[in-house]
C-alpha cells in the first residue's frame, strides 16, 4: 500500500478539496478539542504559577530560600547562585490598636533588606510616617492595618515577652506594605534589626536569611551543611504551607490528567462518527481491494492529525492566554473583591513544561488507544455492504 494513497485519502478526510460539511466537521472538532486543551493548559499554568507565587512570597518575605541558624559572623566564600545574605531576627508579639489586637510575627531586618528582589514581591505605600518621633517605627501590611483599623503615623502597642517579663512597647506605623497574599500579610510585621535586638535583649531568634537561585538551592544547602552550618530551607520552615501547596498542585495536576483522559476518549467519538458516516465508502474501498488495516490507518491518521492540530493550537492558546493574564489579575486585585481576598492574584506566570507535557502525552496516548479501539468497527464492514446502498 503506497504512502501517496494514504496521504490522498487522509487529506480528503481532513476536508482538503472536500465538501463544506466535511471541512465544518473537522474544524468544529479541532475547535472543541482545542478549547478543552487550552482550558487545561491555562488552568495548569494558573495553578502552578499561583502556588509558585505563594512559595516566592514565603521565601522572599517570610524566611528566605535558605536559613543559616548562626548568630556569629558568617564566613562564606564566593558561592554560585547565592544572591543575598541578610542577618534577621524574629519573635512573636501581641499588637494592640485602640480597636483590636492580634498575635504577630515581628521580624527585625537590616536597612538593605528590601532589595530589588524583595521589593518586586510587594507594594509599598506612598505615604511614609513623619520623621519627628523617638518611637520605634514598624512596617505593617495593609491587611493587618485594616484589621487593626490603623494608618501610617498611627501608634500601636506591642506586647513583648522577654527575659520572663511582659512589657508593652509603643510604636509608630512607618508605612504599609501589601504582598498581595493575605495569609502572609496578616501577621508579618517588620522592624529594624537593632530595635528588635534592643527590645528582646537577645531572646529573639537570630539567623541568616539567604536568597539563592531556585535551581541551585539544594546544592547550596548541601555545601553549607558540609561546611558545618545548620541550614534549613523555606519549605522546612513552613512545612504545612509547602505541603499544602505541593498537595494542591499534585491534586490539580491529577484532575487535569483525568480531564485529559476524558478528552482523549472523546476524540474516539470523532473516529466513530467518521466511520459511521463512511460505512458505504469503507465497503466500497474494501470491494476495490483495500485492506482493512489500510482503511483503519486512514481513519486513525486523520483523527490523529486532528488531535495533533487541536492539541498544538490549544496548548499555544492556553499559554498565550495565561501569559496575557497579568493585567487582568492586577485589575481584579485592585478591585479588592472580598471573596478573592485570600487568593494571590499578583504572581509571575511560569510555564510548567513537564506538567503540560504529561497532560498532552496522556491525552494523545488515551486518544490513540481509544481511536484504535473504536476503529474495530471497520473490521465488520463487508464489501457487499456497499451494494446495500445501491
Amino acid at each position: 500500500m503506497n504512502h501517496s494513497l494514504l496521504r490522498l485519502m487522509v487529506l480528503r478526510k481532513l476536508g482538503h478539496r472536500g465538501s463544506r460539511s466535511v471541512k465544518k466537521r473537522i474544524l468544529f472538532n479541532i475547535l472543541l478539542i482545542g478549547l478543552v486543551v487550552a482550558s487545561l493548559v491555562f488552568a495548569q499554568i494558573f495553578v502552578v504559577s499561583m502556588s509558585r507565587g505563594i512559595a516566592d512570597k514565603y521565601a522572599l518575605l517570610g524566611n528566605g530560600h535558605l536559613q543559616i541558624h548562626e548568630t556569629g559572623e558568617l564566613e562564606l566564600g564566593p558561592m554560585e547562585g547565592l544572591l543575598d545574605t541578610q542577618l534577621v531576627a524574629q519573635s512573636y508579639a501581641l499588637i494592640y490598636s485602640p480597636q483590636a489586637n492580634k498575635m504577630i510575627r515581628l521580624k527585625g531586618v537590616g536597612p538593605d533588606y528590601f532589595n530589588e528582589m524583595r521589593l518586586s514581591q510587594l507594594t509599598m505605600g506612598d505615604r511614609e510616617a513623619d520623621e519627628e518621633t523617638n518611637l520605634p517605627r514598624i512596617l505593617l501590611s495593609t491587611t493587618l492595618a485594616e484589621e487593626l483599623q490603623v494608618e501610617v503615623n498611627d501608634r500601636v502597642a506591642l506586647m513583648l515577652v522577654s527575659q520572663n517579663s511582659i512589657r508593652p512597647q509603643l510604636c509608630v506605623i512607618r508605612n504599609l506594605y501589601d504582598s498581595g497574599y493575605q495569609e502572609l500579610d496578616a501577621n508579618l510585621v517588620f522592624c529594624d534589626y537593632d530595635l528588635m535586638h534592643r527590645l528582646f535583649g537577645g531572646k529573639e531568634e537570630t539567623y541568616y536569611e539567604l536568597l539563592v537561585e531556585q535551581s541551585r538551592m539544594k546544592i547550596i544547602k548541601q555545601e553549607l551543611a558540609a561546611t558545618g552550618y545548620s541550614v534549613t530551607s523555606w519549605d522546612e520552615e513552613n512545612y504545612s504551607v509547602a505541603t499544602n501547596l505541593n498537595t494542591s498542585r499534585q491534586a490539580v495536576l491529577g484532575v487535569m490528567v483525568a480531564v485529559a483522559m476524558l478528552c482523549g476518549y472523546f476524540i474516539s467519538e470523532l473516529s466513530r462518527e467518521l466511520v459511521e458516516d463512511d460505512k458505504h465508502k469503507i465497503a466500497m474501498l474494501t470491494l476495490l481491494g483495500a485492506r482493512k488495516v489500510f482503511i483503519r490507518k486512514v481513519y486513525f491518521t486523520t483523527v490523529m492529525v486532528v488531535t495533533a492540530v487541536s492539541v498544538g493550537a490549544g496548548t499555544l492558546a492556553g499559554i498565550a492566554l495565561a501569559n496575557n493574564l497579568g493585567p487582568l489579575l492586577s485589575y481584579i486585585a485592585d478591585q479588592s473583591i472580598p471573596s478573592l481576598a485570600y487568593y494571590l492574584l499578583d504572581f509571575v506566570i511560569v510555564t510548567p513544561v513537564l506538567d503540560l507535557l504529561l497532560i498532552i502525552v496522556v491525552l494523545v496516548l488515551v486518544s490513540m488507544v481509544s481511536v484504535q479501539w473504536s476503529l474495530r468497527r471497520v473490521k465488520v464492514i463487508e464489501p457487499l455492504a456497499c451494494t446495500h446502498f445501491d
Partner: protein
Amino acid sequence: MMKSAEVLSLKQVSKSFPATLRGGRPIQILQEVSLSLEPSTSIAITGRSGSGKSTLLQISAGLLGCDSGQVIFENQQISTLDDVKLSMLRCKRMGFIFQSSLLLDDFNALENVQIPAMIAGCSEKQARKRALELLQTVGLADRLTHTSDQLSGGERQRVAIARALVNEPAVIFADEPTGSLDERNAQLVEDLLLNLVDEHKVSLMLITHNNAFASRCNIVYHLHDKKLEVNA
C-alpha cells in the same frame, strides 16, 4: 487441483438465506448451480427480479459465501482464501460495476479511477496516467476533476467502467450496469462496456434484465426456479 482454462467456474453451488420469520423455513435461492467462464468471453445472466441473479454474481466474486459447492477463480478455490488474499484478488483480478456507479464521492473522476490502481501498488504517477487513458477512452477527458455529484448518471457509469478496467482484471462483474440509465445512456454504456471488454480481453459476467443487451454476450444463461439454464 488440475489447472483449467476457465477463469471462473462454479460447481454445484447452492445458497439459501435464513427465514425472516421465526420458525420459517430457509429460502433456497440457488440449487446446485454450475457455470464456467472462459477467458475473454462474456456471459449474461437473465431472470426475473428476486430470482437470485445478484446473489449468483456475489458468490462468483467471493463477496458472499455459498452453502455447498465450489467457486474456483483462476484455479483458486475462493472459500479457502483469507481476507488478505481475497482483497488482493478483488483488487487485481476483478472489476465491479453496479447499477448505481458507487463512486467515492469525496474524490473526482480521475481519482476514483486511479485509487484502485494505487491500492494495487501502482505509484501515483503510473495510476494517474492509466486512469487518464481510460477516462479518455470512455469519453470523459473533459470531466476529470468533476466529482460524483457533478456527473450525470451515464457519466458516473462510464467512470465506473474505467475504474473496473484500471487494474486489467481477469473478470468484470457487472450487475445491471444500465438499469438506472435512460435509453440513450444505456445504449452508450452497453456499447462501451462490450467494446472495452473485447478490446482488453477481459471476461464479463453480466447480470441484466435487458434481453437485447444479454444477447450481445457469448453465452446467455437464464436463472429460473433456482437453476441456471443456457438460453439458445
